[in-house]
């Protein structure tokens, strides 16, 4: 306050800079609305030069086949709708450095030969797809051979009522794409919610993928990716991931994947990966794993699943520590005797041992595989005798004198009390709140 003139100078300078930048922006802006110079998005996009902004105002634009050939920003204001009326692909990106933001894109018909999508990117880098709503399309967002991609806060909703798996496309489909961020999207009603094939060094965070016909998340050959804080819910076959190493899956929720061949998480040939702090709730099978080695399962909660973990004998050197197993019909089931996996310090609600020295660790080892679960694995119809008194009797006899269940599949130090992961959950809440604040754009 001692020197007011200094303040005035600073403020004027600021205002000047602001004016300049806004002038520059106006200079490169092509407006589209019903009364503007451009009345169709296509016309404006074809006229736009590198660095321009195509600003589309609210309203419905019945067009398709929009091709972006310049590095521009295509931005929707007041939620404009681009309605393809089932006449083909809506937006094709044929340039690097493109942003598409704030549109509702709808009605792309099923096309088996062209794989039409709402937004298609082919061999372009540095693309940003933000805050769009994509409704009733064959594929939602389809990228191939692209790098440095941000797909954020989109809502993709397909219509799968009365359709078969093969007549549906994926909501987010990525093929040979590196360095991708898929964040905060809500995808549903497609074949696969998020489909990644050979996608590396990427992040998949805070997405919700639900009610898809097949998988909520499906990836293969996609090394070094991080999946955190996602929710996969009520998908036809849950989540299936294959042929990948070095995956980090943390703080995800897999729930309500019910059905004959539905898995919370199916791991096939996943190696050297970390699966921490996830919740598996009310799935027919929480985790089904085969040929997956050197995985680290820690701090996960398995609640009320049919089978918490189906551990095939092809899995070796997997570690299960500090997990909670509560209310599952079967904790672990396996298909053979050979076991080379390591269980320690888990909490099992079926554990009936005691703790004389009061160190919180049961004095008697716990064998999570029951005789009956082995029988059900071999002869599925015997599931009809679940909760029969005879079955309980046999299980208890086997527990006292194990002869058929795998000798080596044992938790030598089971915990007496359920591990409280709630502290972590609170931490998650904080993470979510900070993350839902405007994302610092790269």
């Amino acid at each position, binding site marked *: 306050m001692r020197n007011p003139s200094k303040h005035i100078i600073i403020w004027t300078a600021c205002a000047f800079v602001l004016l300049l930048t806004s002038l520059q922006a106006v200079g490169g802006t092509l407006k589209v609305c019903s009364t503007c110079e451009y009345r169709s998005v296509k016309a404006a996009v074809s006229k736009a030069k590198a660095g321009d902004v195509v600003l589309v105002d609210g309203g419905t634009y019945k067009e398709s086949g929009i091709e972006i050939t310049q590095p521009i920003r295509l931005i929707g204001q007041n939620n404009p709708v681009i309605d393809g009326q089932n006449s083909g692909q809506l937006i094709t990106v044929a340039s690097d450095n493109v942003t598409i933001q704030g549109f509702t894109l709808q009605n792309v018909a099923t096309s088996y030969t062209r794989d039409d999508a709402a937004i298609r990117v082919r061999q372009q880098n540095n693309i940003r797809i933000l805050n769009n709503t994509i409704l009733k399309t064959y594929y939602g967002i389809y990228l191939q051979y692209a790098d440095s991609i941000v797909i954020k806060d989109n809502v993709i909703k397909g219509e799968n009522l009365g359709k078969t798996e093969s007549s549906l496309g994926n909501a987010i489909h990525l093929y040979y794409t590196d360095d991708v961020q898929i964040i905060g999207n809500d995808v549903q009603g497609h074949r696969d919610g998020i489909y990644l094939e050979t996608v590396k060094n990427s992040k998949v965070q805070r997405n919700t993928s639900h009610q898809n016909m097949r998988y909520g998340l499906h990836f293969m050959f996609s090394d070094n990716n991080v999946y955190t804080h996602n929710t996969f819910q009520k998908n036809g076959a849950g989540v299936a991931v294959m042929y990948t190493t070095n995956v980090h899956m943390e703080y995800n929720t897999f729930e309500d994947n*019910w*059905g*004959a*061949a539905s898995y919370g998480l199916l791991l096939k040939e996943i190696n050297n990966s970390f699966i921490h702090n996830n919740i598996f709730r*009310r799935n*027919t*099978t929480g985790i089904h794993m085969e040929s997956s080695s050197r995985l680290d399962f820690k701090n996960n909660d398995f609640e*009320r*699943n*049919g*089978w918490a973990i189906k551990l095939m004998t092809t899995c070796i050197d997997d570690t299960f520590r500090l997990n909670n197993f509560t209310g599952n*019909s079967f904790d672990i089931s396996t298909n053979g005797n050979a076991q080379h996996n390591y269980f320690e310090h888990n909490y099992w609600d079926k554990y009936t041992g005691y703790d004389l020295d009061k160190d919180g660790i049961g004095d008697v080892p716990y064998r999570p595989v029951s005789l009956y679960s082995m*029988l*059900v694995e*071999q*002869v*599925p*119809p*015997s*599931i*009809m*005798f*679940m*909760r*029969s*008194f*005879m*079955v309980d*009797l*046999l299980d208890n006899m086997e527990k006292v004198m194990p002869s058929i269940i795998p000798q080596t599949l044992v938790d030598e130090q089971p915990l007496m009390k359920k591990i409280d992961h709630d502290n972590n959950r609170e931490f998650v809440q904080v993470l979510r709140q900070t993350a839902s604040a405007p994302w610092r754009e790269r």
Partner: protein
Amino acid sequence: MNKIIKYVLYDIVRSKIVVAYTLFLLLLSIGLFNLGGSADKGLLSLLNLVLLTVPLISIVFATTHFYNSYEFMELLVSQPIRRSKIFLSEYLGVSLSLSAAFLIGVGIPVLLFAPGATGLYLVLTGVFITFIFVALAFLASVITRDKAKGIGIALMLWFYFALIYDGIVLFILYSFGDYPLEYATLALTALNPVDLGRVMVLLNLDVSAMMGYTGALYKSIFGSGWGVGIAFLILVLWVLVPLLISRRAFIKRDL
């Protein structure tokens, strides 16, 4: 006939065993619902209890009652009353009093803590099992005049249906595991009313979704109106067949 049933009922209530049975069921059901936490869990524990104790108590009580009221029946036979009427009155008197005990002991807690279709199935199953095991008890009683032998046969029957049968079927399933056994298993469960009741309640509970492919198959059968209808029809058969056989034996027999 109504008069005879009335006398039988009066006799049973006076013996106070049924009252004790009612209280026992009531205490157990309320206890289980309060312990279990969720209603589903309570129903599951209750199911196991119902399938184990209800048949046992029904069959033992009905057998002892039959032998104890032998003199009363002899008295009635000397009157101008048809034997079939006497027998059916005895049967209805016992099974109605036991089902009433069950309805009060389990039905009311279920209605309070877990109302719904599954609870209804549980209560219906319990009532059917009472009727079935009273019928089996009467069958055991008409086979032999020796009370000890009769109770022995009744206990064997309970042991068979509650325990041995499941063991045998599991053994069969294990031995023939290489064959498609889905429908064979279905037929085998129909041959044991206890299993049939258990499966019916279980498949209508939340957990049914957890039972994988085969579970889903059975759920599609038992979840439909058709499946439930057929299951209850089989339970009715399970009441009628032993009852009619024992009635025939009772009529023809030299008392």
